[in-house]
């Protein structure tokens, strides 16, 4: 996988996560709502960083879809948590691919993002995994 391909996958994955956080976050309240808003900020920041790195690598930044299929029914708070855990865990593998394709500081950026989202997934209720997917 080239660096541009890996970064393009990160942008696409972050767009899906941003959609999930916007939709599922609205179903949450209190501390969970605040955590969802903080997570939304984090995903937007990483999307922006990935797009900047991709543009710097002469890659074409993919646009976001109008809507995404969510990994769980988010009509209840439990379902919303489950959906957010799934989108965060899915990003861990995407960032690991990016860590393999990138080098030095960009690799550190990717590995840190993967660690952040694996942690977030467990905070949303997922079980820890040896190799998160």
């Amino acid at each position: 996988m080239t660096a541009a391909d890996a970064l393009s996958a990160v942008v696409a994955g972050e767009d899906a996560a941003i959609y999930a956080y916007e939709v599922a976050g609205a179903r949450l309240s209190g501390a969970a709502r605040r955590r969802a808003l903080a997570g939304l900020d984090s995903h937007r920041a990483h999307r922006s960083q990935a797009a900047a790195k991709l543009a710097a690598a002469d890659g074409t930044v993919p646009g976001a879809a109008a809507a995404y299929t969510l990994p769980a029914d988010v009509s209840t708070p439990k379902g919303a948590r489950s959906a957010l855990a799934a989108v965060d865990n899915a990003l861990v593998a995407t960032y690991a691919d990016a860590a393999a394709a990138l080098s030095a500081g960009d690799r550190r950026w990717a590995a840190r993002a993967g660690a952040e989202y694996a942690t977030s997934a467990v905070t949303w209720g997922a079980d820890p995994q040896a190799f998160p997917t």
Partner: protein
Amino acid sequence: MPAPSELPGITRRTGLALALAAPIGLLAACSDGASDAAEPAGSDGSGDGPSGEQAVDQAVQEADLVALYDAVLAAFPGSDAADVLTAVRDQHARHRDALGGATGPSAATPTVPTTLRAALTALADTEREASRARIRACVDAADPEKARLLSLIAASEASHVPALRAARDEATA
């Protein structure tokens, strides 16, 4: 070169395992202040060892974590946290094997705090530091596939932190 067991404090992991007996404040000061300086050669860039040596080093650190969890499980048999401790222990065993395996942990049986709550707090700190060490090794890895693996292990270890903290908050003592 002497066998690791003959050298005091040969790895950072050994130090962390032994530091489990130390007060939490001490642990926090240790991991926040001296994390880079205390890292063994080979994973902080100063060693520039070949990736094979680095892989062995990371695998031994995972074996040390397995031994640490075994010690905590033995110290608190049948506790409410046994399920999460066993699950996390087994994940470190999978990390160790994916990194090429290790003949065994580098140190003698680690010291375990006297209360389960203290042990879980210290384990969460140790996992956070382990994740940081794996990210440093990921950045230094010469082989992209090794970087990918270390990134996943770093993520796994970071994700152990909230699981251990939740278990701690549920522990009565």
